[in-house]
């Protein structure tokens, strides 16, 4: 599936409410939610927190976000075998990942990168983009 482009303005339009929602899920102050902080390394988020955030964002924005499929979405049109091999993201996969997670600073993409470590890259902006994409998909389907 082709990636739906998301602009900075669109991200900022959802950011305040999304940040509040994420802070509530993580049990932290909204001031701790910075757009580019790593949710795992900076805010101690774990997989259940991601599930919680997606669930809360769905309800807050009345959209449907595919749970647990962020990594799958990051792959885009790239077949799985080309995206990763033996649990490690390929060069081609890394290019795709950098594009999908364009909000993440380039130096945070380590090589080799394990697929299991991809969630360490996620930031609040990553989740805002999920919301915007879900809104656009809903609008397109309407």
């Amino acid at each position: 599936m082709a990636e739906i482009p998301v602009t900075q303005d669109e991200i900022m339009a959802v950011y305040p409410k999304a940040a509040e929602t994420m802070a509530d899920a993580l049990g932290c102050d909204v001031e701790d939610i910075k757009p580019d902080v790593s949710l795992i390394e900076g805010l101690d988020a774990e997989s259940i927190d991601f599930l919680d955030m997606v669930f809360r964002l769905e309800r807050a924005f009345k959209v449907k976000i595919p749970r647990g499929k962020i990594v799958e979405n990051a792959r885009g049109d790239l077949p799985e075998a080309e995206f990763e091999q033996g649990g490690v993201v390929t060069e081609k996969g890394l290019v795709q990942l950098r594009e999908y997670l364009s909000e993440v600073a380039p130096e945070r993409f380590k090589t080799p990168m394990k697929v299991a470590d991809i969630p360490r890259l996620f930031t609040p902006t990553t989740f805002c983009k999920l919301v915007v994409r879900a809104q656009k998909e809903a609008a397109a389907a309407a």
Partner: protein
Amino acid sequence: MSPANGHFAAYSFVDRIVAFDVGTSARGTYAIPAHVEAFSAALVAEAVGQLAAWVAMDAIDFRGRPVAALATETRFLSSVAPGQTLDLAVDILACDDEAVAYNGRASVDGVPVIELVDCLGPMLPVAEFDAPDALRARLALLRGEGAAPGRFGGVDALRVDVAHHVPGTLLRATLDVPADAPFFSDHFPRRPVFPATLLLDTQMRLASALVREAGVAVYGTGPAPSPSRATHVKMRSFIGPSQRLALEAGLAFPGDGVVRAMLSAKTDDRLVATARLEFPARPAAPR
């Protein structure tokens, strides 16, 4: 302990499912055995969660089961006593191979006991925890004639050792999860997991003791104060047999008619569970 231990007995709280709308909702019953000493609010929440788990497992053909959980809000409305029968109900908000989201409630004779709002359970491969065929057969039994009541033999009190105590303010304690306990044979047969609801029950007792000490609420000399609400209940990872947990309960006094208890559990300095409790801050009775 009652001899009724083991699978579908030692920690199973649905006797019969009386209405079942595939993937959508269910209603069931659970008769609290008269022989147990008590049946805590946390166990009532467990009963509701188990009914939701049956709907969720069935919805995805027993590929996964919810393990660990989070509950956005739990309202404690009244207490229950051994010998009473819980009427359980769940509404599934969403369910797929990744997670189940649901609301649920329990009542006794029409009196609301508990309400669970926006609960979420990650679905994990069922075969890691239990035998899928045994679960299928059990669901058929529950939806048919129902299981024989009285299987639960109670849970032995868990030992908590206080490590640091500021009366009315803060309590730190250790909880050594037993190496062996009847509930592990049911929760779960293939992989024992310390039930989150037993942890919450223990934490609620610690918080209740702190609230009594705090003196902002007048509870007299009767039973320990009970929370009216739990929010942000979240299990971050499994807790297994023999693990040592560092528990912390701290009170906050936001001044909005409640006393708030912030709860956490850590193992090896890693946060494994968090929750917040609210207790009503009752005004002092006139002397």
